[in-house]
């Protein structure tokens, strides 16, 4: 092949796309040596390939459909009482019950309260799942653990039953502690100057509401919370003793989480007046207006809960890998990939015996893997064992399809004229398209279902097939034509 032909080949859009993608991918993967001289890259590994732990938590709650002749508000209030659980309306005919109940129990309780249960799904609504996710993330971040991932597994019906927490570099015992750990919450009152006195601790807060506007629609945000009876009595006693009811402005209430101030504000005039005469259990901490107020309210809610989740969870599964095992798994997986590529190369060589055919095939095959890895690096996907197995399988079928192209074109051993060549190439591509469509269809159920870690695997496999069909096969068709027309 002379320079002119080579130039023509490289500037062909199919070949050019391939080359550009490979270069971009290598930049994205960015293989380099770190400070210790070890080879590293931007690729991230899942918890079966590096040290870390995962916990799968199951929500102790259910989302149910309901119908009732009572006004909905009244029905919910009744239910809250009879179930002794928080009941939240998800949409016009669905409720979230934040306590674990069996379907039969709920059916009879619903009938007794004047309604009817129309559907039953263990889990929580998407919004609640997002709240839990935020709280967990917040908690993990405040503990300074880096590289944490919290994923809710939400099904097609927008109900999440499980939430998965992955913590890199942390062993299982620590992970269980982090997720289960409650912060130390305290309310103090300003006495004179910078002096403060302890008023309440976190145990006296019996429930925390979601951020709301008070009065509704005013855009003044805050978080409501409820104190136990003894808590309310202690609160009133302290407010009167230190003079906060008489002079609210000079006696701020200060909330601390793990000894850090998270909120500080005076009693409202209204509340100060009421506290003179009676215990108040239902309190509201306002945080301001607009976006800022909402943001502050969201944070305060998390702090008030002291890291406790709005819904109870149980551990449905957990696991972890230690550093040496993770290292060995990673080495094995990488080695398996390289050996697979070499094995494929040998089979191809055995069949064609022509380096000018075998070399482009293997290179194209390898470039497909490089592009996939590049994509994985860009989206920050964490590679795990099934994904690597998927990559190796992409390698195997990728070469299959190159074989189909080569054999179609070399049909009857003759090198075809350009016209015939195109006809044969399109025939080969039609076989490949059907094969690719079946692989993609076979993987789709995994994408939409809740099969835990297999979602990523399905995504990578589908992507591998797409890269093959759209980028590397057309490029190979072009390259092999150049080579064969010699």
């Amino acid at each position, binding site marked *: 092949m002379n320079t002119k032909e080579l130039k023509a080949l490289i500037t062909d859009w199919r070949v050019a796309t391939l080359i550009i993608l490979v270069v971009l991918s290598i930049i994205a993967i960015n293989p380099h040596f770190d400070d210790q001289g070890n080879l590293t890259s931007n690729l991230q590994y899942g918890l079966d390939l590096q040290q870390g732990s995962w916990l*799968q938590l*199951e929500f102790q709650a259910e989302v149910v459909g309901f119908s009732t002749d009572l006004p909905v508000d009244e029905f919910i209030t009744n239910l809250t009482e009879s179930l002794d659980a928080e009941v939240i309306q998800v949409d016009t005919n669905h409720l979230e019950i934040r306590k674990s109940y069996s379907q039969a129990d709920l059916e009879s309780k619903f009938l007794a309260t004047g309604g009817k249960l129309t559907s039953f799904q263990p889990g929580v609504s998407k919004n609640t799942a997002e709240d839990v996710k935020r709280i967990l993330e917040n908690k993990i971040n405040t503990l300074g653990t880096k590289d944490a991932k919290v994923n809710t597994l939400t099904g097609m019906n927008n109900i999440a*039953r*499980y939430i998965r927490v992955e913590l890199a570099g942390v*062993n*299982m015992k620590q992970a269980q502690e982090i997720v289960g750990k409650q912060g130390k919450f305290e309310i103090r009152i300003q006495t004179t100057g910078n002096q403060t006195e302890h008023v309440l601790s976190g145990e006296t807060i019996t429930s925390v509401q979601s951020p709301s506007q008070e009065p509704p629609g005013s855009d003044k945000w805050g978080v409501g919370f409820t104190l136990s009876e003894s808590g309310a009595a202690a609160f009133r006693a302290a407010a009167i003793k230190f003079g906060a009811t008489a002079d609210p402005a000079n006696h701020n209430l200060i909330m601390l989480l793990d000894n850090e101030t998270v909120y500080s504000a005076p009693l409202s005039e209204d509340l100060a007046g009421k506290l003179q005469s009676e215990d108040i259990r239902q309190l509201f901490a306002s945080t301001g207006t607009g976006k800022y107020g909402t943001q502050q309210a969201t944070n305060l809610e998390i702090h008030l809960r002291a890291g406790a989740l709005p819904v109870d969870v*149980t*551990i*449905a*599964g*957990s*696991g972890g890998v230690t*550093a*040496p*095992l993770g290292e060995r798994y990673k080495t*094995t*997986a990488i*080695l*398996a*990939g390289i*050996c*697979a590529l070499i094995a*494929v190369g*040998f*089979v*191809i060589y055995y069949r064609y015996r022509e380096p000018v055919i075998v070399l482009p095939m293997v290179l194209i095959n390898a470039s497909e893997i490089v592009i996939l890895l590049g994509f994985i690096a860009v989206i920050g996907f964490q590679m795990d*064992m*099934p994904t*690597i*197995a*998927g990559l*190796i*399988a992409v*390698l*195997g*079928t990728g*070469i*299959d399809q190159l*074989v*189909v192209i080569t*054999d179609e074109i070399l*049909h009857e051993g003759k090198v075809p004229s350009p016209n015939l060549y195109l006809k044969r190439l399109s*025939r080969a591509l039609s*076989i490949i398209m*059907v*094969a690719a*469509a*079946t*692989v993609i*269809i*076979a*993987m*789709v*159920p*995994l994408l939409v279902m*809740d*099969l*835990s*870690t297999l979602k990523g695997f*399905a995504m990578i496999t589908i992507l591998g097939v797409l890269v093959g069909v759209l980028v590397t096969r057309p490029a190979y068709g072009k390259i092999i034509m150049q080579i064969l027309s010699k």
Partner: protein
Amino acid sequence: MGLFNYNIEKYSPKQLVMIPLALLAVSLVLLALNMAATGMPVTPGIDFSGGTAVTVVTTDTREQLQATFAGYPLIDISEGVNNGYFIKFGAMDDTEFRSLSALISEKFPDAKVDQIGETFGKTLQSQAVLALVFSFIGMAIVIFLAFRTFVPSVAVVLSAFADMVMTAAMMNIVGIPLSLGTLAALLMLIGYSVDSDILLTNRVLKRQGKLSEKLTGAFRTGIIMTSTTLAAALAMFIVAWFGSVLILMEISAVLLIGLVFDVMNTWLTNVGILKWYVLKGGGK
């Protein structure tokens, strides 16, 4: 490929499909028996049944390990190479599991522990079966849309079905449980096992020429396709075995088994039905 000759001219379609159909029947019976015994056609691993799996590297003997874990619901200890052990436990309550994980982190600080709760496993189990069924139906629809002729499409789908059933039966025989990893492998097989069937059907139906020549040509290409994937899976299996990475071993073993059955089902089952269809006057 020249290693062996593919010459089926002297066999009638009936003779071609006889062996695979008999094997398919046996496999179905095996799966039914397993279903009666465990409730699932393929024995579920801890991913789907709940339980705890521990991977350790230790110089302790099997008996010593048994003694260490005597107080816990030990199910099975299997050995890998390089002193690797895979230990399985049945379902435990929270306190029992915590005491087990404390024991493990004290005795084997480098162990890998995975624990799946029973209800979580059960949820995954039903999803797994659904995923397999949907995948298969999806594949069948693509095949019917692509070929738009009844008999050849049925031949492809039946071959793929036979691949799955025989692979599943073989998994039970050699003791590979259904885990998230092997489920992934089975799904890959659904997609990949039809590759050579599609090539075969395409060559026979859409090309001019003598049937036997078209079959030989298709075989030449098809067997290489399967061989490359087999080679990749074999390389993966050997490396995984040396590195004692159980999940990768299981995935590659399932692929290997499936691909071997695929060779038979493509070049006997599918070819048999296709030959019958062409001789009867279908196709071009």
